[in-house]
């Protein structure tokens, strides 16, 4: 995944997100589905909900959050999470101007 590509929540979606005991629960009003996310996927979504973020920025946040090196392994994990969130319709790429 392109490290400079930015992600956002779909413009029309306001995602209700709850955090409990290490898990996130989110409702997607665009699909009507409810998803339970683990703490890292939930954190990625929470960051994107605060404003569009690139993969590189997300990797930085997650590395700090987990206190691990911001290396290739972190990038692969974040990319996998982004792919899942995208497939669930919870995030989308920011359209290039």
């Amino acid at each position, binding site marked *: 995944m392109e490290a400079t590509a930015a992600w956002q929540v779909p413009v029309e979606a306001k995602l*209700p997100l*709850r955090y*409990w*005991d*290490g*898990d*996130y*629960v989110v*409702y997607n*009003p665009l699909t*009507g589905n*409810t998803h*339970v996310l683990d703490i890292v996927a939930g954190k990625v979504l929470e960051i994107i909900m605060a404003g569009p973020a690139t993969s590189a920025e997300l990797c930085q946040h997650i590395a700090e959050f987990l206190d691990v090196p911001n290396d290739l392994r972190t990038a692969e994990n974040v990319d996998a999470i982004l792919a899942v969130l995208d497939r669930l319709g919870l995030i989308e790429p920011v359209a290039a101007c």
Partner: protein
Amino acid sequence: MLVRDLSRQALARRLRSEGVHLNTGVFTTHLRIRIARLVDEFAEMYGPYSLEEPPGIDDAHVLVEAPSLWHRLVKPLAVASTTSLAIEPVPVDRAFTAMETALNWGPVSSDVTPLIMHSAVLERDGRALIMPAPSGSGKSSLSAALAWRGWRLLSDEMAVFSFEDGSVCPNPRPVSLKNKGIGVIAAFEPRARLSRVYHGTPKGDIAYMQPPPEAIARAGESAPPSLVIAPAYAEGAATTLKALDRAEAFRWLVDSTVNYASMLRTGFEMMTAVVAQCGLYSLTYSDLDSAIHAINRLHADRRPARRASA
């Protein structure tokens, strides 16, 4: 007017012709019965329930009848149906069980329903205990026992959540006791009024317990959720309570609802509110008194919630 205020003859005539509008709490069902022998069993179990007169808007329509002349005269069968579904025909001596199934499903299958969870619900001190559990978990025996030990029965079958404030609305219909649970409750509480035993149902033997008088008299009083407990009966097991992780409990509660998906975001908000405001536990038990004691301790340890009205 209560069901028992009508003479046997008047009740039979009403049930056979225009039907009655049976109020069981949050739901009112337009009920017609065209099987003579079922009228006595209905009168016996539903005597203290009120009839809506003049009738308002019914939440469901239920008809119990023989499916055909052949099934009335030669091979007696009963079929109970609601507006949108017909319950599997049963031998006519089990017509009451078919009627109970239809009374459960009637309001649930209507187009406009509140959020409903398959669960027993009881109330104490203005706070509701919700017990979602699959069939065979001992839920009905435990809720029947609690209903005679200081808890008010709101329902043995469904938690009906108010859109207004998220409180649970009562619908205290007869408790369906199965197999060993029948004898257990008969021995546990001599005041319990049980129906005859219906043998050979898909769930084995079934008998119904009429809710205690207070449960029926206060069927208009809702209560905010305070405790969620998943009960599981296990032969010989010591009473064990285990706190549940909230996300896990959320998933399980949503799975226990009948119509969560159709509630869209409202359903999400209501279920997350239940998870946020309730103590969440699983309970393994084999002894009713010990299980009730454990539940009472949990209840006492929780801060009183604001009382909701119906």
